[in-house]
């Protein structure tokens, strides 16, 4: 196999430095294995996330544009973003400013730089599934995930709204299904692929999150999945951190590991449990993976 290294800009986002650290760890490891060199955008800042989007439209777009401008000054023409919310914010900022010249001028005044609307913004799942491709991924598999029954859970921000994310299908996305299938896992079908977990209400409206995440966990248990696979650190945090509390409310114990798709890629590539940060999840996947002969 020829060894061609692809270089691409990387925007991890704030969560991947904190609660989503294991997502970041597994992303870096998996990309390295696939000969993708991630070049972190120097001095990237927060995209403003949902609070800026809610409270201040100009600030939200400016923070997005600031990061795209940073990519431009470092000659980065493509950026890959693991966090679905950051992905949607950066992409929206770019497209909204392309469409509105008056707003663009205002934002340029705010960020004291030219708006860079040429940079390509990719979400990580899409980049791996479509740009790297299933064939290249299959080439790296050392340990297929045989017998592992997984439910792919995409959440909202990756696919909705369709005219903003331009990615997959907002009601029935398939890209993660295909990727997990390529890893050798048994991909179960369900209707909750893009249901909301409660997202940023986790802190201020914990009850709402327990209700919404609870519906997802209940359905996953009914489908008898071994694990729920996610592409978003907020989904991971809500479904994993609140799982014990939700189980208590439902009078049961779910014990359902919530795993990043990149962690499963890593395991299939023969990487170690710990180097993928899997020991960090509250609901430990260890026993389940051992029983399947994957660990």
């Amino acid at each position, binding site marked *: 196999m020829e060894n061609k290294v692809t270089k691409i800009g990387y925007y991890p986002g704030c969560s991947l430095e904190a609660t989503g650290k294991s997502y970041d760890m597994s992303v870096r490891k998996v990309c390295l294995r696939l000969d993708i060199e991630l070049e972190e955008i120097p001095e990237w800042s927060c995209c403003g996330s949902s609070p800026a989007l809610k409270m201040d439209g100009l600030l939200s777009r400016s923070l997005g544009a600031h990061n795209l401008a940073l990519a431009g000054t470092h000659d980065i023409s493509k950026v890959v973003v693991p966090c679905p919310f950051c992905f949607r914010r950066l992409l929206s900022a770019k497209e909204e400013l392309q469409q509105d010249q008056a707003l663009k001028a205002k934002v340029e005044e705010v960020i004291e730089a030219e708006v860079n609307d040429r940079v390509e913004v990719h979400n990580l799942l899409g980049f791996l599934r479509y740009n790297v491709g299933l064939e290249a991924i299959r080439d790296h598999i050392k340990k297929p995930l045989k017998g592992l029954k997984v439910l792919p859970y995409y959440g909202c921000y990756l696919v909705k709204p369709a005219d903003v994310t331009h990615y997959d299908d907002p009601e029935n996305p398939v890209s993660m299904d295909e990727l997990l299938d390529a890893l050798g896992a048994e991909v179960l079908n369900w209707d909750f692929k893009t249901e909301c977990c409660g997202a940023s209400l986790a802190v201020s409206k914990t009850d709402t999150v327990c209700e919404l995440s609870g519906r997802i966990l209940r359905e996953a248990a009914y489908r008898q999945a071994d694990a729920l696979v996610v592409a978003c650190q907020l989904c991971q945090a809500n479904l994993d951190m609140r799982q014990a509390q939700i189980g208590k409310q439902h009078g049961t114990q779910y014990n359902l590991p919530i795993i990043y798709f990149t962690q499963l890629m890593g395991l299939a590539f023969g990487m170690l449990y710990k180097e993928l940060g899997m020991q*960090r999840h509250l609901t430990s996947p260890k026993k389940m993976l051992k029983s399947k002969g994957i660990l």
Partner: protein
Amino acid sequence: MLRLKSDPQEREFLNQVIVKSGQNLLECLQCGKCSGSCPITSERVRGPRRLIALILSGIKDQALKDQTWWYCVSCGTCASRCPVEINMYQVATVLCEMAESEGIKSSEPGIHLFEELFMKSVHKSGRVQELKTVMQYNLRTFNPFKDAVPGFKLMLKGAVTPADILWTGASNPRVARIFKRVEKIRHGE
């Protein structure tokens, strides 16, 4: 509803929302697909369809005090399913900015406080200090041990460290300047 006739002055609020959000609420069919799909609509939170009805009817004070747009998590489900492609999280931003500029008290102080603390953290260090922000929120709402159990377990697993809570990130002057300029433009208008 006022949308077809009425005094232009009474339509001012509706027009403002439409122009600022870029969402043509006049096309709304009141079909209710949005509220039926919305994860946060409940017995207590009236949801996007009824919020749009308030705006179309020019009932500004109620619309600006509505809980729906505070609860909105911008999941985009309503926008994906709306037959006339109205994006409600864009409307939420406009209502939030209007309420802020008119000094209307938040109907959801908890959500408001968290979002403010979040932005303060970004303002200060350029990136949000996630765990610190959660800790500050729990302290400010007199609930310091709210997430202590999962938090402690995460620490034992090494997923988070005490430094994540205590460490004050380095400042990011460029981001601070962005905040300052946005503030200036807002007051200049």
